[in-house]
Each structure stands twice: as C-alpha cells, then as structure tokens.
C-alpha cells in the first residue's frame, strides 16, 4: 500500500499529500488522475495528479474536503498508508511546443498546475499561472508555482491578495495584451462554474482552451460510462477520452447537473460520518 511521506494542511479544507508511489511517479504526465480508496468498503474517488518527482518516486495530490470520503482522506497523516491508489489514469495534456501557455487554477484546482507549469516551462514554453480564490487564506501553492513558471497572477474575490476580482477578469486582460500578454493555450482546472466562465471568456477571442472535467466516476477505466460528458454533441468518457477536453465543445449545463445526481446520498454519508466521530482534522 502506498505510504504518505508528507501531509500538511494548505487551508482549513485542503490538504497536501506526498505519497511514495514510484511506479506511478515514473510515468505520470500533466492532466492525468488517480483513483483512491481509503478503507475496505470505501468508495473509489478520482483525484488529479498535482505533481510527481520521478527521481524520488513520489506523487503529490491535493485533496479538498467536500464529503465523507474526502474527509476520511484528509484525516490521514504522514506515515499512514492509502489502501488503494490506481493510476495514472486518463489521457495527458498534449499541446504544440513553443507557445504561451496559461494555466488557470480555481481553488484547489491550482494544485494541478504544479506539474503542468513545470513540464511546459521545462520544454521552453512561456508559462503563466492565474490563481483564483475567494480570499488570501484560501489561496494555495502560489509560492510553489513561482519557481516553475514565467508569471504567477493572483486574483481574490475580496482583494485580500493580488487583483480584486475573478480569474476570468485577469484572463480577459491577458487576452487583450495586458501583463504577460495574450496566451496561445489556456488550461483551466477548478470548480465547474469557473471552468465554464473561462470557456466563455476565451470563446470569442478564439483562444484554444482545455478544461479538466471532474464528473462522477466509479472505475476510472472506461467500463461503466458514469463519467460520460457531452463534447461537441458526442458522448465521451472523461476517464479514458479525457479528462481534459476542448472547453468550447463541452456542455457544462449537462455536466453540472449530472454531478448533482447523488447530493442526497452524499449528505447522508457526511451526517453518518459525523455520528461515527470521524471528524475533520
């Protein structure tokens, strides 16, 4: 079982884990994910790979507490083992060399920019990360991202750090030529509403944009279709055909509705966990 080497809280609801997983670390690429299961009888949940260190054989993930299983994950500490970690899963992000790549991270989605920005910077692309959060306290990994990309732009809803406003406002300024300038490729990772807003921002100026979809998943290997998303009017399985898709082709309305299919059950699971006394750390 993969052992947790390092665990630290980034915000009251997000936690950073470095895991000993040399096989996965050796082949993981930006855009891929892992499926986790933390206990016998536990569910399988998809988590985006935030970073990897091939030499050290470690994998980095950032988990946000949103329900019962993520609460159980976030209760883990260094030295603990994770029952099942399967990956890397999904396809990786492929974009042509030599452009200006802008990664947009909303909330804990910023974590996935770590390997993305590092890989694209390393091959010579110009890289800009736009990080967004409601306030300064919820902003994550800005210091870790600075050394791996050309520019880091910060936006907070309340103006407590960086620009006051949404990531899409800063992105629009970039497209207009401001600051680090117009990006050739935008990759947005974060809450569905934020990714949809990014897609709308880049649609008219025709900037190629990818979004990392996070539908409900069961197996993550293409055998159930639970994660199907509509892309360009066609059904695609996010776990094998994605998880990254052309943002201008994705039907976000359907995707957002499908993600709410189990809200009642999710609430029940959280209430039950509270009764069991497995509480937030």
């Amino acid at each position, binding site marked *: 079982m993969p052992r947790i080497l390092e665990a630290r809280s980034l915000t009251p609801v997000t936690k950073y884990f470095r895991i000993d997983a040399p096989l996965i670390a050796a*082949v993981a690429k930006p855009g891929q994910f892992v499926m986790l299961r933390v206990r016998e009888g536990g569910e399988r949940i998809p988590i985006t790979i935030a970073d990897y260190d091939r030499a050290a054989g470690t994998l980095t993930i950032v988990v946000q507490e949103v329900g019962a299983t993520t609460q159980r994950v976030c209760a883990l500490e260094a030295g603990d083992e994770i029952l*099942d970690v*399967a*990956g890397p899963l999904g396809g990786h992000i492929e974009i042509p060399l030599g452009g200006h790549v802008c990664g947009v991270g909303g909330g804990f989605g910023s974590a996935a920019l770590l390997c993305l920005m590092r890989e694209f910077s390393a091959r010579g692309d110009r890289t800009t990360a736009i990080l967004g959060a409601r306030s300064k306290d919820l902003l994550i990994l800005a210091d870790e991202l600075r050394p791996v990309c050309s520019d880091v732009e910060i936006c907070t809803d309340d103006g407590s750090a960086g620009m006051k406003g949404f990531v899409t406002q800063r992105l629009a300024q970039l497209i207009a030529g401001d600051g680090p300038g117009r990006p050739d490729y935008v990759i947005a990772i974060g809450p569905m509403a934020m990714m949809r807003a990014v897609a709308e921002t880049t649609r008219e100026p025709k900037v190629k944009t990818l979004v990392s979809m996070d539908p409900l998943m069961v197996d993550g290997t*293409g*055998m159930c279709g639970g994660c199907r998303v509509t892309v360009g009017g066609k059904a695609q399985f996010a776990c094998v055909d994605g998880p990254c898709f052309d943002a201008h082709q994705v039907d976000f309305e359907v995707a957002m509705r*499908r993600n*709410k299919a189990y809200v009642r059950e999710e609430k029940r699971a959280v209430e039950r966990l509270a009764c069991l006394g497995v509480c937030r750390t």
Partner: protein
Amino acid sequence: MAKKKTIRTIPQQRSPVREQDPRERVRNFAEVNCGFRVEDALNEAERCLLCPDPACVEGCPVSIDIPGFIRKLSAKDFRGAYDVITGTNLLPAICGRVCPQESQCEGVCPVGETLEPVAIGRLERFVGDTAIAERWTNIPYIEPSGFRIGIVGSGPAGMACAADMAKAGCDVTVYEAFHQAGGVLKYGIPDFRLPNAVIDAEIENLRKLGVKFECNTLVGRLFTIEQMIDEMGYDAVFVGTGAGCPTLLGIPGDFLNGVLSANELLTRCNLMLAREFPTYDTPVPFGRRVAVIGSGNTAMDAMRVCLRLGAEKVHCIYRRTKAESPARAEEIHHAEEEGIEFHWLTNPVEILDDGKGNVRGMRCIRMALGEPDESGRRRPVPVAASEFDFECDMIVFAIGTNANPIIGQTAKLKLNKRGYIETDANLATSMAGVFAGGDIVTGAATVIEAMGAGRKAARSMKAYLGIRDTGVDDLAGPNGSAGKLFGIDVRERNFARIRVA
C-alpha cells in the same frame, strides 16, 4: 458389474433443486439456487447413461470428462470427482453456475431426447461447492520452467490462462485494474447468481498454485504491453481485458440523471456493495419504477438487482421477442417469477425530462419482426405511428458492450475494425509473444468460452516457449483423466502430488 443402464431404468425425473421462494428472495441478495443436497446429487448421477462416446464432452467448450466425474460421484467418491473435473477445469463452482448448459453439455445429452437431460451443471457445481466446503485443493509440486508470464486482466480468461501456465511451471503475474481480482465474475454477476465468496475461494486456489495478483494496475497507462515484453522481462503475455465498454443508447435524453449503464449499476452494487450504503460508501441510484433496456443476461441481472434494491416495479424493454432474447432460459424464468414485466417488440426512441434534469419516462415505439439479419435473427423494424409514452424514474441500459479502447490505443497490436484484438487460430496476436483471448477477441460471449480461450492461449504460449504440453485435455475419454492432475500425467516425474485437505 452393475446392469447396463437404459433410458427406462434410470430415474425419469430430474432431481429437484431447492430454490429460494420468489417472494422471499426479491428482498435479499443470497443465492437463488441452493444447489443439490448429497442425495439429490447421487440420484441425479444415476440418470447418466455413461455413454461410451459421450456427446456431452463434445458439447463442453473445455471437454470436461463428464461421465468420468459422474462415475466417481455415483461411487460416492466426491474427492475423485473433483480430481477428474480439475483435470480440465479449475473453476467448477463458477462454471457449474454460470455456463449456459442448455446450449452446451446438457443440450446434447442423449437422455434429453426423451427425458430432461442430466443436470450436468448442477452436478459440477455440487462437486465444486463440496471442494470449497472441504477446502480441497490440488496443488502439484511443479518443476519451475524459468519462464515469466504476464497476464492482463483477471477475469475468467485470465484466470484460466494463469492456472494452466502456473501448472506448466511458469512464474505467473496477473495484472488487474480494479482493486479486486475476478473481472466480470466480481463486478458483473450478482451474488444471487454467483456469490463473491465462491470467486474468492477459486482465486485463493490460484494463489496456492503460485499465481501472483497485482491489483490497481491499469496496463496501457502504468506500463504498456511492449514494456512487459521488452523491459519487464516477461517471456510471454496474455491479454484478457474483456469487452467492458458499454454501448450507449444514443437517443435524446440519455444524459438525464437516472439513466445509467448496467455496468455502472452492477459495479456499484456487486463490487462496491452500494446496496449496503451508507455502511459502504458508494451510493446507488434508487428508482421506484425502473425500465431496463435489453434482454441479455446482463439485463436480467440488472433488473433483479433493482428489485432487490427496493424498486416497486421493474420492466424489461426489448426490441425483439422472447424467442430472440439472448438471456439464458433459466434467467428469464427467474426474472418472471420475481415479477419482472416484459415488454417485447418495444424500443425506446427518446428519454423524457421531468423539467429538473431527471427521468420522467421514455417514448417508445412498437416493433415488428422483419427479414433475418446477418446474425440470423429476424430484424426488428419500427411500426409506423405506434409511439407511446412509458412512465419510469430510472433507466438502465444493457444493450451490449464494446472493446475497451485503452489497450488498443497504447499497444501496437493489430485490431479489427470493431476495435477487438486480431489473433490467428492459435490466439497469437500480431506481436511476437503476445496472445489474447476472451471477449477482447470475440466480443461479448460467455464465461466458459472466455475460460476456454484462456486455456487455448496457454497451449499456444507453451508451444511458443517450447514447454512440452501433454495436451491431455483433448484425451478425455472413459479413462481420460485417470491418473492425471491438472492435465499433467502423474507418470511424468516432474511433480509430486500434495493434498491439502
């Protein structure tokens, strides 16, 4: 010497098999068919005519010496019967339950010409269950051959191939993408038909043979088939990844909440034990009035699972008639007993929205049977202006599966136009040392056909590696399995027999 049995002297009636009462069993996931008691098995064994040239052996895809094990049963030598069966088939408790015997061994049994055929499947299951209860295993000491074999997929094809290669002295590793081994036997077939405990017992037997199982490993992403051969030191690889990718409905509304594939429903329920939610963490959608589209075994399983999850009414929607239904007769019978309502010659054309993104019902059209198509079945054609609305709050589609694309995308194996792996008659793929079998070659088929393919591939792999193959599977006859263990002749001095009981 007993008097020769004739059709007139044998018991005329099949031994009754105890089944859970339909009204009881729709409320639990326990096995429907309780299996033979000892006296039932002995009585049924008496019905076999012990034909000198047995048609049943021909009818069995892996040619089990059926009269051979029945003879042992009649002599009350249950252990002997187990040894005969495991000479050709390592997983009797599974095959005895899930094989479509009516179209295989039992379909050609001469007794069946005048009476009901001998219940070969139930007898095989009796022997397999007895072995599990008594903890019998046949573990030969095998001289290591030094070869390393990688197997991709732990379903029935992979399990059968692993068993044969381990018996040939190879160091076998099975890679499985899920967190538990077993493939469709685990995630697909529900406990009321094939208890997961039975599969675990059979997998444990493979572990005792020295087979290693590596779960959470998706070949194609973590490493490729090429790497297994080039870098990881496997002398041969068998690909048995199955056809697990569901065919979607492709009609308006199929993205509404409450529409899901049978694979998703069954995986949630069988593998993740969502039926125990919230004790187990995986939720399962709940429908009061469920429509299952399709009429294969998967559809039957899905319908019966929905009933047990508490649905008030479950409907089967199928575009052909009962006669063309691909499900086993026994499964349809069980489903009918449990109160499933069948709507033959009916096809959905649109799924209807309740205004909040959930299923409200579906629009169906009546069908009629036209000319036979390439599969030989009469093609269903829509009846003009026969649309009607059907009320339901959950829709499960079980209209077939396709090859999973991952292996095809990540290995340079030659595929056919439908995405399945192309092999020659010996199940060798376009890549030297790589063999494939089961649903990933043939498309969705049966468990026993997959196991047969796994064993056939094992024979080819042995030939490829230059391992001598005694080939006794093919020699099963009146004395075919006598003195043989796992298909190896005991007179060969490459193993000693150890009994674990």
